């Protein structure tokens, strides 16, 4: 594995009561954008959580920038501050204003001075059309507004790897286009990203590579053009077939 590899997952197994991830291996090179697709319940969110060390794993190893982060004794906080995650359910802090939600990590982890953190947060919020919501509280925001705050919160930390879980699910099409722009910008500026998504068009637009996750196993992976037009695995074929039948690809 070259030193440049950002993320290397090997034989990752994860069980709750039943086995959810059954030996996942996956590598992300710098600036790569990989999309995880697959049925609901196939394990996409769980995989992202494992990479961020939010779930104990049963077997396998994860390397981040050459360091084995699943080894005992690793400084997990240090790892996590360099990996950003946007949760499917947003998980905003309800007792903090939007601005505070975003600056918390900046000031307490990166030690950015409060004024500078506020400025950075305000800039990002404006970019996502939330300039007027900075002092609002999360429970008083619409679904799409919450989702955007969650994205900004992760982005503000300038992570070296981003894990995005259904980041466009609550966004209107205009915003999806904008988020797409942002993510493209991040990718060209060198950010590596692992994205779980149900939006095939989004995946096709943005991904360097698409992984089809089925029942805790990566059944097929490759460039979107290949996967979407000529899938080799039977299950992948079925999955895409139905989507096409439904007129959604």
């Amino acid at each position, binding site marked *: 594995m070259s030193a440049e590899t950002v993320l290397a997952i090997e034989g990752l197994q994860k069980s709750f009561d039943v086995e959810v991830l059954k030996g996942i291996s996956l590598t992300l090179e710098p600036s790569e954008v990989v999309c995880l697709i697959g049925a609901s319940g196939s394990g996409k969110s769980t995989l992202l*959580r494992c990479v*961020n060390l*939010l779930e104990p794993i049963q077997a396998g190893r994860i390397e981040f920038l050459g360091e084995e982060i699943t080894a005992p004794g690793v400084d*997990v*906080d*240090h790892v*996590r*501050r*360099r*990996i*950003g*995650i946007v*949760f499917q*359910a947003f*998980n*905003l*802090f*309800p*007792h903090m204003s939007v601005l505070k939600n975003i600056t*918390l*990590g900046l000031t*307490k*982890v990166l030690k950015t001075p409060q004024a500078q953190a506020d400025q950075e947060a305000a800039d990002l919020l404006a970019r996502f059309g939330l300039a007027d919501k900075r002092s609002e*509280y999360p*429970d*008083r925001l619409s679904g799409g507004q919450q989702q955007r705050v969650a994205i900004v*919160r*992760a982005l503000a*930390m300038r992570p070296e790897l981003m894990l995005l879980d259904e980041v466009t699910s609550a966004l209107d099409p205009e915003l999806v286009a904008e988020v797409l722009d942002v993510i493209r910008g991040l990718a060209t500026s060198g950010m590596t990203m692992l994205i779980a998504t149900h939006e095939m068009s989004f995946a096709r637009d943005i991904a360097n590579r698409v992984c089809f996750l089925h029942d805790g196993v990566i059944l097929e992976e490759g460039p979107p053009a290949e996967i979407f037009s000529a899938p080799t695995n039977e299950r992948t074929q079925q999955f895409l077939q139905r989507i096409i039948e439904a007129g959604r690809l």
Partner: protein
Amino acid sequence: MRTHGASGSRSTLIALASTVVFALVVVLVVSNSPGWPEVQRQFFNGEFFRESLRVIPKAFLLNVRIFLIAEVFILVFALFIAILRSLPGPVFFPLRALAIVYTDFFRGVPTILVIYLLGFGAPALQISGIPRDELFWGVVALVLVYSAYVSEVYRAGIESVHPSQEAAARSLGLSQAKTLRYVIVPQAVRRVVPPLLNDFIGLQKDTALVALLGPVEAFRQSQIEVASNFNYTPYLVTAILFVLLTIPLARLTDWLVIRDRRRQLALGAAR
């Protein structure tokens, strides 16, 4: 909400009216009962009331002092215990067990005994350097006992915060300690303000137990008055003082909590 108006206000009125009627009946029956004059003389006696007012409030200052000093330590120490108790995983088991033993023991043992043991026992050991002051040991006893109670209240708050909040904070790279400090504890405390206040009030009243060690606080002072006049009215004065201390505290915390909720949540929300 608007659509509730009619039936809501009707049932409220009925409930209120019946409460008022009930209260009136009780007052009438009581004040016309054969024993009322004597009860009034024994429990609600104007003369002894005025007399007690001269001495009890002064003694009450001691309660307030004990309360304030103990409370500061309790709030901090209890949080520490609660956090020990909430540490996850098998590695922390010994610390967790320690916290459990602590809370079980100090909640289980009658406060009076802790006060006696420390207040009479510790100075009697005659170890040099150990304070002999009864007030000191009284406060220590109250801190030990009430920290056990308050830590359980904190714990309830901490555990009621959804684990996804912790995941979100840790994902930003916040350490466990900072996650507790900025994300978990602030949400936890807000949720348990009413039971916290319960324990504040309990502590306020239990400052009276320090009197067992000798110092004369309001309750002991009223006992002295009661005993020397053969009249229970002085207790009333103490009770009023305690209630007067409680009410503003209760209203203040309620107000703080409501302000918080209003800011964070849609309060127009229907029910």
